[in-house]
């Protein structure tokens, strides 16, 4: 067997993976729903019939109607417009925070798992320490340090999810490190950077993709919780969590104020979760545990 064929990666199963994914109707439906939500968020400035802060006191607390599909709030603002305009903010925060966690946590995990030794021991102790804090508590502590707002929310959620990505990436990098094609590359003197880029990264991308989708679901929920508590997106900018906070005072009077923003959070998180589940079944059947266990609080 030539050295070339030994260092070649195992035959890719990407094509069959996608076919498998497409054969799961729940995953396909979730991808379609997610596509619609993202398209709605991108086109919201053109789709929204009213401005997010267009106050019309004469029109306050109107139930859903042809003019106001989701009704109006206590200031007469159109809830449908606010829900779709808030989608962009929620998704931006979720993508930015998870992107941060993926880059930083994934990087830490790969270095830790691939090099092992004292680097691994130190980095994993740091990860253990971060795991000792419940997710929302750590996010709140970070918000307490800085001023509440969109950048702080991104940092808070990003930092909270970093150790999860570090653990997933480390576990995968560890198993790839001992595989024959990596060991042969090492023996041939290939520099670590190129082994990491050419062999390790592509082979651990499956678990990281799955983790990204699941984390996006939990990031949407975390952002909504922070905004509900008044510590995330700040009014008058619309946010799903913030809208539910306002709705608390009108539960008996205007059910629509709480129902629609809550349904938006629920459907978005559910879609990300179901896509993550579908991807997991195809790419990495044993994953999911860490992030889900830490969902409450």
């Amino acid at each position: 067997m030539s050295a070339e064929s030994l260092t070649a990666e195992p035959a890719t199963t990407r094509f069959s993976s996608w076919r498998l994914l497409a054969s799961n109707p729940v995953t396909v439906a979730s991808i379609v729903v997610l596509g619609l939500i993202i398209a709605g968020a991108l086109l919201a400035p053109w789709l929204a019939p009213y401005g997010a802060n267009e106050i019309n006191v004469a029109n306050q607390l109107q139930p859903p109607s042809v003019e106001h599909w989701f009704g109006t709030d206590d200031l007469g603002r159109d809830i449908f417009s606010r829900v779709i305009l808030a989608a962009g903010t929620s998704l931006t925060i979720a993508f930015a925070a998870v992107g941060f966690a993926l880059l930083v946590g994934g990087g830490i995990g790969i270095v830790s798992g691939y090099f092992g030794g004292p680097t691994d021991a130190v980095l994993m102790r740091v990860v253990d320490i971060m795991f000792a804090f419940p997710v929302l508590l750590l996010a709140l502590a970070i918000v307490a340090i800085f001023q509440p707002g969109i950048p702080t929310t991104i940092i808070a959620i990003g930092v909270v999810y970093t150790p999860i990505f570090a653990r997933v990436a480390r576990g995968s990098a560890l198993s790839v490190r001992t595989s024959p094609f990596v060991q042969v590359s090492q023996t041939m003197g290939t520099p670590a950077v190129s082994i990491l880029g050419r062999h390790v990264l592509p082979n651990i991308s499956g678990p990281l993709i799955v983790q990204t989708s699941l984390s996006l679901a939990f990031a949407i929920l975390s952002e909504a919780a922070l905004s509900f508590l008044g510590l995330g997106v700040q009014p008058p900018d619309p946010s799903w969590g913030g809208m539910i906070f306002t709705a608390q005072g009108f539960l008996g009077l205007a059910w629509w104020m709480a129902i629609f923003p809550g349904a938006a959070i629920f459907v978005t998180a559910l879609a990300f979760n179901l896509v993550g589940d579908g991807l997991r079944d195809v790419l990495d059947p044993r994953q999911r545990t860490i992030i889900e266990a830490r969902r409450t609080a």
Partner: protein
Amino acid sequence: MRVSLGSVARFMGTRLLSSAIVLFGVVVVVFALIQLVPGDPVRLALGTRFDQEAYDALRAASGLDRPLVEQFFSYLGGVLTGDLGVSFRNGQPVVEILLSRLPATVSLAIPGLLIALLIAVPAGIWSALHEGKVSDGIVRVASQAGVSIPDFWLGLLLISLFAVRLGWLPSSGYVPIATDPAQWLRQVVLPATTVGIVAGAIMTRYIRAAVLEVAHAGFVRTAVSKGLAPGRVTFAHIVRNALVPVLTITGIQLATILGGVIVVEVVFAWPGLGRLVYDAVAARDYPVIQGAVLLIAMIFLAVNLVVDALYALVDPRIRLA
């Protein structure tokens, strides 16, 4: 099976040591929290209530005017002796405040966890034993929905139905169980159900996965091929062996719920640790935030240690690994 106490003790010794290292790291992070605040934390906390005398007194009490290293060792010493400083808001010792909030959190966490177990154990086992059937599909979708629902929204939906519309239960408030058990029960139903549904959904997925893993194991195939009655295989072999992972997820959930279901406590005006953290963050009461974060992390580590100990007693592979 005879359990060798020596091996359990050795295993626990190692676990205690690594927990102590993590705990030290937690203290460093908690200490760093106030140091990372841009500007003067005492001034920020006082906000519009600023007056020079109060400022000087708080600053001296917090020790923030001393060198960093000295502050750290003083904080560490305080942690070891149970002195976590005083609140910036009212000067009350932080430990006193934390202890006054703990009973409310515990009295929400236990019924919440019980509801979660009542949902998750039957649903998870049923779903796994009927893998691929319609009932399994229903349980899987329902648990996925439970995982995706924002808990504060679920709480508000329950309030809106059972308190506002039907008037069966109070929408919020808390009475200690010792003062008025009946009123406590009426008030705990909605928050505990909210906590229980979300935690139950998470646990259902775990229990299903744990039971499935055991059901596919070699010794179960052997038991079936030996001709054992299906009921005996299910309970004596599958469910019993799936208990270890179930114990783990129950421990993690208990620790997480005890750590303060922050938004649920806020929605239901439940005066526990979660609500305390929220109020302290809003008021920038840093010593209370530090104390609460430290206590919650300690609870988390302690529950994990207990779970590990039970684990080692139940499963010899763990302590011998």
